[in-house]
């Protein structure tokens, strides 16, 4: 059944391609068009860490790459943080609009749905903005690549550092959906392994919660030393703000913090918080160069690691397409992904890296501390380095994820 459906889809695509060829034959060059769809949050809590900046980053990669032998078109849409909306858009893009690759997708629930659609349609999904480690674990597939960070990496880097520093009892404040649950699960594993203990947790409705004071009091009364903040974006901002307001004495572990969150919080509230980012705009000369180009498109902003990931992954995809030929790449998403895995990655944001068989793109992860207002030299000068984990240790070992591709 599945096979015949795919054959029909492929057949449909082939006939669609055939019908466009004669139309374009009149022109001097009949070039195939590669379409990249940036599916992101344009209206919700993750807009600033991904959103319009992610669309800009996709276009930056396309412009810089200046593809030869094929045209590249970028489309974009808002998934509204709803998995059903995201999956519907992905289907329309793949089936009707001839999109070959979907990038970004901040929100783990939507990302898992889109990964399923990409597999079904033999297209490609490269995730940059969401975190669930299930994308390269039990839900991995041959059409999906996870680019920047995941809950395992965040848990190991931030969570591990916290436990080492003496934070051995935890209480979790968790967004009640795929991402929050995965982040809590992965961090709990590290806490238990290090001899620590989780004293309690509260899962709050996502999205739509803006008052966290009640949960903060519950966390406080648990007696735990560390508050594990398993949410992201605007929710993290409100959590940290209100923790300060209510004089919560626990150490705050912002398990997923973006520079856009720190910017919104202001240094006087955010100072001293430890966080993990695999990209910081001021980490080296190449990153600053990327950042300058990004600012030209998004004045007043700085790229987050999600933005950097969208740029970096789009670039790697275009390199692969050039190598294998656009016509071939359009036809078979899984084959293109296999080629992407075979090629080492390299760009200004993440340096050299590679993609594992389970779809996990690996590179070092960095632990940062938010500077105090006195330490900061100016706007967006927010992080100082605390440490780093090399690429081969930063992510979950291949054999522990339960990804079927690894066994095969």
């Amino acid at each position, binding site marked *: 059944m599945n096979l015949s459906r795919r054959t029909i889809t492929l057949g449909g695509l082939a006939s669609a391609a055939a019908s466009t060829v004669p139309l374009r034959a009149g022109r001097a060059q009949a070039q195939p068009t590669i379409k990249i769809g940036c599916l992101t949050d344009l209206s919700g809590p993750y807009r*600033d860490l991904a959103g319009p900046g992610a669309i800009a980053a996709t276009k930056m990669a396309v412009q810089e790459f200046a593809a030869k032998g094929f045209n590249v078109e970028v489309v974009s849409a808002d998934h509204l943080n709803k998995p059903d909306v995201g999956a519907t858009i992905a289907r329309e893009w793949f089936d009707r609009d001839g999109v070959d690759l979907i990038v970004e997708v901040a929100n783990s629930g939507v990302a898992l749905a889109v990964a399923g659609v990409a597999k079904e349609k033999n297209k490609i999904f490269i995730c940059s903005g969401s975190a669930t480690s299930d994308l390269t674990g039990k839900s991995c597939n041959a059409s999906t690549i996870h680019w920047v960070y995941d809950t395992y990496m965040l848990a190991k880097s931030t969570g591990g550092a916290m436990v080492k520093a003496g934070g051995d009892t935890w209480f979790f404040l968790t967004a009640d959906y795929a991402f929050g649950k995965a982040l809590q699960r992965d961090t709990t594993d590290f806490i238990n392994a290090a001899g620590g203990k989780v004293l309690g947790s509260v899962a*709050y409705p996502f999205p739509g*919660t803006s008052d966290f004071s009640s949960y903060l009091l*519950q966390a406080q009364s648990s007696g735990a030393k560390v508050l594990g903040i398993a949410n992201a974006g*605007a929710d993290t901002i409100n959590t940290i703000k209100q923790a300060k307001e209510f004089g919560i004495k626990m150490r705050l572990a912002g398990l997923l913090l973006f520079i856009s969150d720190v910017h919104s919080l202001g240094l006087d509230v955010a100072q001293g918080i430890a966080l993990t980012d695999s990209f910081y705009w001021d980490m080296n000369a190449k990153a600053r160069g990327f950042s300058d180009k990004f600012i030209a498109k998004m004045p007043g902003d700085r790229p987050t690691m999600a933005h950097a990931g969208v740029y970096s992954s789009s670039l790697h995809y275009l390199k692969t397409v050039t190598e294998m030929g656009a016509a071939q790449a359009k036809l078979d998403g899984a084959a293109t992904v296999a080629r992407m895995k075979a090629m080492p990655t390299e760009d200004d944001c993440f340096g050299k890296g590679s993609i594992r068989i389970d779809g996990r793109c690996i590179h070092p992860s960095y632990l940062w501390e938010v500077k105090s207002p006195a330490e900061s030299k100016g706007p967006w000068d927010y992080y100082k380095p605390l440490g780093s984990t090399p690429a081969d240790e930063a992510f979950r070992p291949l054999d522990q994820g339960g990804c079927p591709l690894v066994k095969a």
Partner: protein
Amino acid sequence: MIMIFGIPGPLLFGQLLLGLINGAFYAMLSLGLAVIFGMLNIINFAHGALFMMGAFASWMLLDYAGIGYFPALILAPLLVGAFGIFLEKTIISRLYKLDHLYGLLLTFGLSLVIEGLFRNAYGSSGLPYRIPAILQGAFNLGFMYLPIYRGWVVVAALVVCISTWAIIEKTSLGATLRAATENAPLVQAFGVNVPRLITLTYGGGVALAAFAGVLAAPIYSVNPNMGTNFINTVFAVVVIGGMGSIMGSILTGFGLGVVEGLCKVFYPQASATVVFVVMVIVLLVRPRGLFGKAA
């Protein structure tokens, strides 16, 4: 330690108090909605966006003009209220003769437009707005640490709610207003400018939302989505209290804040839905709402 239903006593008291604080916002917002519905028969779905505009107005006053929190508490409602009057005069007033549904759709559309514009200009992470120096710090109540600012929110909300109720129920202006809702042509015959009265009522309801927005600005980050988080709950509050009932919406606002606060302890996953469960039960048992008058 005293345990109540398996929850430590101090924690439970803390939750009750926090529920009251959130209830203060529900009360202020639902009050504005009730006033507007009572007088204009418009279900003002733009209320959340106007609440958000109040918060943004206070942020803009501080950031662009250096005007602090307390003047903003007066100025922001005036500015946003004036914007409300402009909306009423130019757009909303055209719908009075039509079914409620049109007003609802129009104001819903307006709120989408307003929020979209703010999102485009300011992003969605929110902008920082500091608690004024005099209201910083906290009381230690023994069972919890109560930020002075949150206490202030409850007091300010109570004062505003009770004054609004008193103006409508106890003054001659309020009597005229109520009369105009009952029978506009007759009141007009007495020489009262009813259309102007209606415009000012809408402006007043909007100013209430903006006032709540200013109060909310230091607690939540000033964020284009801050109204949407509230508005659905607030509608449920108005329905439970009884459409158009002033005192009903105030009491229900505080009451549901407490119900929601308790739910956050016993079953947090349902805290966003508990208000609607209450709404369904109330509608089944008392379709006019708890404080609504029979037609």
